[in-house]
């Protein structure tokens, strides 16, 4: 099932990149997609981690929220940069992560990094080391709102 969905996504990707719909080119695309999946299977790359299709539903809920957060904090960081006084108070904090799976932890770590103002330096089991540009940024991360949302994202498959 996962293999079929991987092959279909690759074929759609081919069509998007090519933009031609002649029988020869479509067949070539389909054959390439199937061959790539066949090789990837031999390399053991088609697993829940390599092609996490199970999360597509909950991603539709989580990503819009994440985009909003990114825009908000990017705006805050931009204000700090253009401020002549450069009001930064960088801190290193340890943040709890309650995700059970590797994909969940990676999603949380990447969400932290994507949000300007906070970067995950080390991502361990249950705890991340995060560098924050301001103490306020670190404090709002410690409240754990993002953590809860990622855990929900991970659980809702």
């Amino acid at each position, binding site marked *: 099932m996962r293999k079929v969905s991987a092959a279909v996504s690759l074929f759609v990707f081919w069509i998007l990149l090519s933009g*031609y719909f*002649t029988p*020869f*080119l479509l067949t070539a695309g389909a054959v390439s997609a199937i061959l790539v999946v066949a090789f990837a299977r031999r*390399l*053991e790359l088609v697993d829940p*981690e390599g092609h996490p299709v199970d999360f597509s539903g909950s991603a539709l809920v989580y990503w819009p929220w994440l985009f909003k957060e990114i825009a908000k904090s990017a705006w805050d960081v931009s204000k700090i940069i253009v401020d002549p006084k450069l009001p930064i108070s960088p801190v290193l904090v340890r943040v709890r992560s309650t995700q059970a799976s590797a994909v969940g932890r990676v999603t949380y770590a990447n969400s932290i990094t994507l949000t300007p103002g906070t970067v995950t330096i080390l991502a361990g089991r249950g705890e991340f080391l995060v560098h924050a540009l301001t103490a306020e940024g670190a404090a709002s991360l410690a409240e754990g709102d993002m953590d809860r949302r990622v855990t929900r994202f991970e659980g809702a498959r």
Partner: protein
Amino acid sequence: MIETGAIAALLAMMAAVAVAVVRQRNLFAVVVLTTAYSFLMATALAALDAADVAMTEAAVGAGISTVLLLGALHLVGSLEMKPSAGSAVPLAIVVVTGLLVAYGTYGLPAFSDPDAPMHRHVAPRYLQEGPKETGVPNVVTAVLASYRGFDTLGETTVVFTAGIGVIALLRRRRPGEQEDKP
């Protein structure tokens, strides 16, 4: 107009990177700066409408050659020695050669001149007959993959090697797989 300005700005930045690369003694930094140079070069080429050359520059310049240069650094160490002789003579040679090359460009047809010999030889045939003779929609692809197929085979090998490099770099270790100790 704005395109010309953008290309000029890109070329100026490339010149700045070249100077920085020459002055830098740490070879790690040189490799990193060379990558930036390749990105600028590829963007300038794309702005000049040479999409295929831009693609190759990005793949070879920023991709495979970074990896190869780093491999070489592993063997030779990453600090460049100070040159023993002064730099006046080499600088003079470089300046004279550069001026000669710049002078040589005045002998070339104007940029994108439709009457240039290059555009009157085989190009019209590729443009008109290409899709019919090869069945490939893109003219550049038709020339590269069909009319100059053998030539391209070598290039494809390079791109393929770059792909293998990517897989080697991003490969994940399975649980239980032993790392062979050096």
